[in-house]
């Protein structure tokens, strides 16, 4: 159907205006900020000067940036792999009819539904030096002294990654489970006639048939995980000593703790470049799929 230009324009203008002014413009604005010497005072007075690429040079010379970059990579890759594996196993459990299925499925969504401030605070307690996990393991005599899950430079990022795996289970589960529902039942039936065992069915039918869904879930998961901010900010604030910063929390603390908006914007531009490269790469992956 066709619609006159003027009506079309009227229907679209609210969403276009909102997204261009508060979504696209800020992204472009970031690029300019990253080339300027912006702090709060120079911004308000309008005296910020263009200083070329020196924000980028300083960022790339900052060990904290490289730490945050490698943390982001660790966090994203481990999260995605484990979330998808656990989500898939959970979907297999649900892939049949049984009593109370609806209720149990609704309960699985709880980690997704809980506000991040709530789950973040919980894990801050759960993983603290004298928190639940340590007290529990000590009582079982599995450890001799408390493990410093989130207070040592080495462990913090891995503990955060584990928490993020838990957070991501519902989302991965629901996408993979929905995908499994689309697989025609006859495939399983005929394989049974041929004498296939349970695991053979999973390996030779479920997984290959699920491949497009797995790829879509993977791409989406990478993009969503790459931008995680809240969890780390709430549980460790990037500490101890910046050891658990992700790129997102690193840039936020540059801006709001140190008021170095220019440098913060430089980190954001670099993040944006990574996302664009990734989307380009994932489109090719989808393309080859066809």
């Amino acid at each position, binding site marked *: *159907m*066709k*619609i006159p230009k003027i*009506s*079309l324009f009227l*229907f*679209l203008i*609210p*969403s276009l205006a*909102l*997204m261009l002014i508060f*979504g*696209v413009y800020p992204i472009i*604005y970031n690029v300019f*900020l990253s080339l300027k010497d*912006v702090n709060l005072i120079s911004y308000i007075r309008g005296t910020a000067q263009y200083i070329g690429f020196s924000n980028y040079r300083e960022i790339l010379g900052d060990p904290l940036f490289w730490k945050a970059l490698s943390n982001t990579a660790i966090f994203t890759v481990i999260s995605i792999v484990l979330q998808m594996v656990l989500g898939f196993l*959970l979907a297999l459990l*649900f*892939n*049949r009819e*049984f*009593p109370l299925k*609806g209720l*149990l499925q609704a*309960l699985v*969504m*709880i*980690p997704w*539904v*809980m*506000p*991040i*401030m*709530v789950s973040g*605070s*919980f*894990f801050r*307690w*759960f993983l603290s030096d*004298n*928190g*639940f996990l340590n*007290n529990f393991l*000590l009582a079982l005599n599995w450890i001799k002294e408390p493990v410093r899950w989130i207070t040592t430079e080495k462990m913090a990022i891995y503990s955060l990654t584990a928490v993020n795996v*838990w957070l991501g*289970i519902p989302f991965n589960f*629901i*996408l993979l489970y929905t995908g499994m529902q689309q697989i025609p039942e006859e495939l399983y039936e005929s394989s049974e006639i041929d004498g296939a065992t349970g695991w053979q069915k999973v390996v030779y039918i479920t997984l290959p048939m699920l491949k497009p869904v797995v790829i*879509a879930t993977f791409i989406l998961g990478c993009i969503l995980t790459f*931008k995680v*901010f809240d969890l780390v*900010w*709430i549980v460790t604030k990037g500490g101890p000593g910046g050891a658990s910063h992700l790129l997102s929390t690193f*840039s936020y603390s540059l*801006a709001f703790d140190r008021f170095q*908006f220019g440098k*913060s*914007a430089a980190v*954001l531009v670099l*993040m944006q470049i990574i996302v664009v490269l990734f989307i380009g790469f994932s489109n090719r992956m989808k393309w080859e799929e066809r």
Partner: protein
Amino acid sequence: MKKRAGWKWSALVAVVVALIVSPLYFIAIGGFMSTEEIFYKPPYLFPPEPTLQYYREAFFTLLPYIKNSFILSFGTLLLTLIVALPASFVVTKFEFSMKSSLSFLFAFVQMIPYTAVIIPLFLMFTKMKLINSHFGAVLALSVFLVPFAIIILRSYMASIPSGLIEAALIDGAGYFKIFTNIFLPLSAPGIASVSILVFLLAWGNFIVPLAFIKEESMRPISIGLYVFIGQYGVEWNKLMAGSMIYTIPPLIVALLAGRAIVAGLTAGAFKE
């Protein structure tokens, strides 16, 4: 026919699910205990001397924050629907030349990380006097929820027969009238599903109020819970009681409308 399994299977799944949702249980009982009991070794699995005192104190301390959370969530829901519905109408039902670039724009904005716009938006809002304003926070929240809503709405609206709209056009109805009188009522299930998701996401959002609302009396409960995380240590029992109070509205929504959440999420994920 799908394979059937009995209660034994339910029990197995229930154990796994209990493990996944156990944090909520420990938050709930933490609110009934003193801080010493919360850190007791070995940890309590039931509150030894349950008291309602901390829930009561947390509730009255948090009341103004809860009010702000409702203002922000419903404000965001309202703005998102007002903006997203007309757009999804034309995008779903009509052909026009820039349509694919428009879809790209929606997908692009949805993928922008919040953190990437929070700093430029903070500077823009400082100049526009939108810091410490609920309207500013609602704007910032809606930017990302609008493309999300449009993408989900499209998948629901695709099934509305175009013939109805064509017939109304022949009868001389205007586009706006068709939108309000034919299209919106038929989109009710999609609107319901999107409203639930948008409400949940706005209710749980942390970074927008963290960055844009510095005035204590304007803050929603996501940031308000920090009142229990003071300079002199954390009041864990009240923090847990408050966390539980904060979780109750989304929990009710999830248990009542789980199906709508699932349908909306999968529709949003597999589009484009």
